[in-house]
């Protein structure tokens, strides 16, 4: 029981009394989403690292080729002083070199535009040019970037999309030799690599996601089956067990533990049944015999003065029996061991009959009674228990309400439940009683009942999977609100139809 003193009211809530189930959404999606995200990040880091490594390696190999070729060209230029011959030889070497460019596309044009060779004189005029495009643009770009000797450098040249890797060789008085190779092929190779990486990455992440999702879902399906079975067991048959997966993992262990717990619960409930059953039986037989003897005594001395005390002894016995019955009922119901024989019951009709039965008694005491109901509302419940429950509510009002008060009973549909409220404009629940209203043996200071009435009401409501809440009304009087699950087969549609029909 959860007592909320600050708001001046309290609620009785039990695990099984809440009927509104939270909508279930599988955790498999969430888990596999996070798993896939972690997986994607991890593989991404690995790929970035690999990419850097490959790009660095390609750069290194290009640079090695460039410096090597530039060295050859310097040697050739140094050994062939004759101007024309020199040009010729250098041009051929350059041509040759341009065909050995690393990472070239094999089907390239003969005169490719990915390599250039340039020799400048001391006065910065181009003396030799092999390559595509305008040598002046190349020279401008080279001069602009202040290139260091024998160090390959990236240079952007106007008219080309991709930068060139250029090495500068100083040949003393003859000026400089520049050898440049376009980074286009290099970038293309890296681009292709990245594309393959991306596709592979996507594939791996998808496969990983699918694997995690499927395994998680399978695992959670086992858990869900266990949950569903367990909830069914709670409301119906204690002899059933949750399905135990064959695997010996945590879920299998959970099912095993649950089943063992159910064994224990079943045996305690069985024990309770046996105890209450035998208690009822063992007490009842002597009670029957005693009652019989009293009745015999009554007939033997029919007109005697003592018959008065015999009659009152019989009445005391009947009260004792009734008390015994109710105590056992409440005990069984509190232990969730009441046997329900559920049928579809129209609560509206039941209330009308009950009001009919109680109205004379109420008006005899100067109490009024009102029913506000929209019409037919079917619940799935045990008729005998509901009759007794409503009778207890009325008995409670009859006993405690001072004259000239009114009992207002209202019935309506609230979500998947029938909401039954019993309100009065009397003094309300006494503070010392209020917090323990639904416990056994709690009665008001001036009560002459045995204090089981509302405990029994609470027990019946719980046994049906409903909720009960008692509070003092805002201004004056007491209010008891009860919800009972609607009959699923008819549901709300029927009740609205008949409500319309009755107007």
């Amino acid at each position: 029981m959860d007592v909320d003193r600050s708001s001046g009211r309290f609620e009785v809530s039990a695990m099984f009394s809440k009927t509104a189930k939270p909508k279930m959404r599988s955790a498999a999606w969430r888990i596999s989403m996070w798993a896939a995200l972690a997986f994607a990040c991890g593989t991404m880091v690995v790929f970035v690292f690999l990419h850097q490594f490959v790009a660095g390696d390609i750069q290194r190999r290009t640079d090695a080729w460039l410096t090597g070729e530039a060295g050859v060209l310097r040697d050739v230029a140094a050994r062939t002083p004759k101007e024309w011959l020199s040009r010729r030889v250098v041009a051929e070497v350059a041509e040759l070199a341009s065909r050995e460019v690393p990472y070239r596309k094999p089907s390239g044009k003969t005169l490719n535009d990915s390599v250039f060779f340039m020799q400048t004189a001391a006065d910065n005029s181009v003396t030799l040019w092999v390559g595509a495009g305008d040598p002046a643009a190349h020279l401008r770009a080279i001069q602009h970037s202040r290139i260091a000797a024998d160090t390959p450098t990236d240079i952007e040249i106007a008219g080309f999309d991709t930068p060139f890797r250029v090495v500068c060789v100083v040949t003393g008085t003859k000026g400089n030799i520049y050898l440049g190779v376009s980074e286009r092929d290099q970038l293309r190779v890296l681009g292709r690599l990245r594309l393959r990486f991306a596709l592979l990455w996507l594939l791996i992440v998808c496969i990983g996601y699918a694997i995690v999702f499927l395994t998680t879902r399978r695992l959670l399906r086992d858990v869900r089956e266990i949950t569903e079975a367990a909830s069914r067991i709670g409301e119906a048959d204690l002899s059933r067990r949750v399905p135990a997966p064959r695997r010996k993992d945590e879920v299998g262990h959970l099912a095993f533990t649950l089943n063992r717990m159910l064994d224990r619960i079943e045996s305690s409930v069985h024990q309770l049944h046996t105890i209450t059953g035998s208690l009822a039986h063992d007490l009842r037989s002597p009670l029957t015999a005693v009652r019989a003897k009293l009745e015999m005594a009554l007939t033997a001395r029919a007109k005697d003065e003592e018959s008065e005390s015999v009659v009152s002894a019989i009445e005391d016995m009947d009260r004792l029996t009734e008390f015994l019955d109710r105590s056992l009922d409440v005990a069984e119901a509190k232990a969730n061991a009441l046997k329900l024989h559920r049928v579809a019951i129209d609560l509206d009709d039941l209330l009308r009959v009950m009001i009919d039965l109680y109205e004379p008694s109420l008006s005899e005491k100067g109490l009024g009674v009102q029913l506000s109901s929209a019409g037919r509302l079917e619940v799935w419940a045990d008729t005998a228990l509901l009759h007794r429950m409503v009778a207890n509510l009325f008995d409670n009002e009859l006993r405690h309400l001072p004259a000239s008060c009114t009992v207002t009973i209202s019935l309506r549909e609230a979500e998947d439940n029938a909401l039954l409220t019993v309100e009065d404009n009397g003094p309300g629940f006494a503070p010392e009683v209020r917090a323990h209203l639904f416990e056994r043996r709690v009665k008001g200071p001036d009560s002459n009942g045995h204090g089981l009435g509302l405990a029994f009401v609470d027990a019946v409501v719980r046994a049906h999977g409903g909720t009960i809440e008692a509070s003092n009304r805002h201004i004056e009087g007491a209010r008891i609100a009860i919800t009972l699950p609607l009959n699923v087969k008819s549901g709300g549609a029927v009740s609205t139809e008949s409500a319309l029909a009755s107007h």
Partner: protein
Amino acid sequence: MRLLLVEDEADIQNFLRRSLTEAGYQVDAAGDGKTAERMAVESPHDALVVDLGLPDEDGLSLILRLRNLGLHAPVLILSARRSVDDRVRGLEQGGDDYLTKPFALAELLARLRNLVKRTAVPAADATRLRVLDLELDLLRREASRSGEILNLTPQEFILLEYLCRNAGRVVTRSMILDEVWGMRIQPDTNVVDVHIYRLRGKVDADGRRPLIRTLRGVGYVLKDR
């Protein structure tokens, strides 16, 4: 009227045999299922009173076995359990009745009489009921006394009709609740008494001869003589 009483506890058996004999029944008593079966086969009975907790077998299986042997007499079941299970409720629909222990003798006698009457004479489809100077028109739902119309509510009419149909016999509060309101409850308060009190105020008013008599601790009788 010949009864077969099946009850294993000597005290209760003695008491019941005496009381039932006093009430005008011829009683055969058995203490266990075997004896009961033999007696039932030997001679026909008008009704049976069977305790569910017999030493040698379950009273219910005895009843079912006797039914299979061709027994048609109605059975009043005595049960020491406080709520009877489905099988007994099923029997109740078949025309039998049950009582939980401990019971009031008057209740038992009343129910037994009701049971025998129910099976012996199928409910007469008369449109009028007459008890002394009280007359009920079942079609127009009107009651009159010495020709003077009584101003009854529909519920009061049903209650009076029930009393009339059982005129001269004791009806208990729980029988009234069961038959008129269709519920087996034991209210803490005197709801039935208040209904009877009101009805009596209308039926027995104006110095007429009182018809509805209260039997303290037992129930009510509508006098028919």
